[in-house]
Every structure is written in C-alpha cells, then in structure tokens.
C-alpha cells in the first residue's frame, strides 16, 4: 500500500511537478503539496500506523529523483519534510479520531511549502537570511509606499491560502478514503459470493 501511494505522489511530482517547476507557475509548491499530502493521507486510511506517511513521502521523494526536471533536490527535501509534518499533525490531532488529525496533518504539511524557501536559504546562508528578508520587505514597502498593515495583510492572505488548501487536502482525503474503502469492501464481498 505504501508503494502504491508513494508511486502516486511520486508520479504527480515527476509529471505535473516537473512541468510546473519548468514553466515557473506561481504557487507550484502549494499545489503539489496539496495534492501530494492528500494522496498520502488517503494512504494512511489503509495503513493507519505511525510512520506510514513518512514512508510514503520517502518513496515519493526517491521516485522524484528520476524526474526529467533539472533541479530535484529542493522538491525531494520538501516532500520528506511534508511527510514528517503530516505525521506530526496526525500525532497531535490524536490518531484515533476521524477528522481532526487529517485536517491538522494537511494544514501543517501544506504550510511547509511557504516556509521551504526560507529554510533552504537559511541552511545555505545561515540565520542572518531571515533578517535580510525582513529588512528587504521593509525597504520594498517603503519604496512602494505600502503601509505596514497592508504588508501584514498580504502575508496573512498567503498564510490563509496555504491553510485553506491544507484543510481541503485533509477533507478530500477523508471523503475519497471512505469511498475507496467502501468500494474495495463491496468488491471483496462480491468476490467471496462469487466463490
């Protein structure tokens, strides 16, 4: 099961992801994280044990290495960290519950696509990079005559967009997971009756 859902996530990253990265489509990370974590959470419906989503993300990341796109390292890091954050979301939400852990896992994992560029650049250049971005943002706001309220509203909107996408991923995973379970059960019952 882990192989199937890892392959699904990996194939989305290898095909759609490679194309979107190459075409420099805005919010590519958000879109791919939303779909990927939704697939992984559906996988969790079938393998409901700790570490399952992390394994799915590892498989997807290793498949991403076969991608036709040139730069695959950042997406691979993103996939694995999203898997870890989804596991954290499931643990925090209480694995025995039905809805909350899925939504929390979706929100945490999808929001990583917002943090990822700052994280990788922080690793490259050290902690000072955060100060550079803060001061650059202040400078840009001053040049464009934007009030600090508008800048904060813009950042809040982007965070909200990521959070809503995460909630949708978790919600869709619950609905599709249930539908999939029903369908597989009914087919198994038909097979038993047929025998």
């Amino acid at each position: 099961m882990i192989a199937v859902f890892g392959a699904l996530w990996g194939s989305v990253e290898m095909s759609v992801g490679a194309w979107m990265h190459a075409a420099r489509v805005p919010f590519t990370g958000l879109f791919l994280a939303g779909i990927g974590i939704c697939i992984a959470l559906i996988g969790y419906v079938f393998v409901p044990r700790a570490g399952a989503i992390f394994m799915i993300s590892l498989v997807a990341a290793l498949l991403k290495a076969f991608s036709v796109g040139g730069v695959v390292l950042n997406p691979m890091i993103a996939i694995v960290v999203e898997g870890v954050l989804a596991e954290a979301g499931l643990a925090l939400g209480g694995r025995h519950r039905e809805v909350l852990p899925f939504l929390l896992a979706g929100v945490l994992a999808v929001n990583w696509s917002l943090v990822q560029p700052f994280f990788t650049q922080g690793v490259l250049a050290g902690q000072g990079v955060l100060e550079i971005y803060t001061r650059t943002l202040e400078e840009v706001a001053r040049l464009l005559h934007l009030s600090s309220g508008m800048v904060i509203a813009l950042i809040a909107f982007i965070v909200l967009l990521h959070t809503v996408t995460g909630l949708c991923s978790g919600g869709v995973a619950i609905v599709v997971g249930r539908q999939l379970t029903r369908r597989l059960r009914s087919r198994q019952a038909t097979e038993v009756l047929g025998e």
Partner: protein
Amino acid sequence: MSDRLGTPGYLCCFVASMTAAILLPGWRAALGLALAAVLAALFYRAAFRALLHPGLWVFVGLLLVSMTFWVGVPDAHLGPIPVSVSGLAVGLQMSLRALAITLAVRGLASRVSPGESAGLLERAGVKGLGFTVGVAFNLLPSMERSLRETMDTARLRAGALWRRPRVLRLVAVTALTSAVRRAEDVAAAAEVRGFSPRRSRPLPLRRGRNDLALAVALAATVAVLLLA
C-alpha cells in the same frame, strides 16, 4: 578517478565539504569553498552545473546587495549613498558558504543513485524501503495505463471531465481502487515467496578502492583547516 570511489567515498566528500563550510568562521569560509570545489573537480564535475542555475545567483546577489545597502551598518559612502563595507564582507562570506554547500549537496545527489539512497536509509533503520521503492517504480506504468483507460471511459460516458467535478472524483476513486488491488496482488505474490521486508537484506552499496584512503585524507584535511 571518480570510478574508484563508492557510495561511502562520496558520503565522506559530502560530510567533509559540509563540515568545512559550516564550521570555518569569517573569511576562512573561502577555504571551505576551495575544498568543495577541489572535491567536485576530482570526483563529481556535474555538481558545477548547479552554478549555472540563475536562482542561485539571484540569491547571492540579494545577499550582497541587501547586506551592503540596508542590512549592514553604514560605514562608508558610495557618492551620496551610504553603504556598509563590513556588511558587504559578511554578505561575501555568506555567499562563499552557500556556494560550498550547493556544490557538496549537488555532488552527492549527482553520484548517489536513488537505489543507493534507499540502501543508505535502510542501513539507517528504515526497513523495507528498497523493496517498497522497487514495487512503486514497477507500478508506475500500470498505474498510468489504468488512469488513462479510466479517463477515456469517463470521457466517453460523461463528456469533458473538467466540467464535472463529481466525475473527476469518480475517476480518482476508480484509478486508486485499481492501484490498491494491484498492490494487494504484488504483496500476496511476495508473501507466497516467503518475502518479508523486515527480514530482507538492505540494498547493496557500491564500494570503491579509494574510499578508506579518501576518508582518512579528508578527516585530516578538515581537522587541519579547523585547528590551524
């Protein structure tokens, strides 16, 4: 020369480059970049392709410009504009470190295959990953075929898919169902043959003749760089 190195050798190059890049303070970060560049030139020239990526130079430019003009404390003037020479120096040191880390990471990624990465992760405690990745890789063509057939069927019955979200959901569920059933078949086949991911041996790693010698040489070099 690179054909005499195995996965442990490349791993040593990565660790040595990263250690030097992260731990060497101030202008000695240039030594870290020099070490990373020498290792890349000797063992993984493909890593230099990372330097052609425009995003990296935009990042370096942002570091230098921001540190010079608005982050660093102004200590000189460029005509009427106050600039920070000390800020520029810090920006340059950060850039040297960033370039060294980029070379090290891209070098490892270019020389260690996904299979070997799975082998390394299995040795680090992620049991059964090699088998799972193998199954996943072999499932890709059948999953793609199944998805295409499902979409064709749905299109013939319901018209353009993007106009009907419900049909899209049904397509997704059908494709997932067939993928899950295929996975059950693979798992059953492996079980019948007595395979257990937990008891399987990890994927083999490529070993090179020079791995050990290189590891000793790199450990000595990094120690000298840090202590000198």
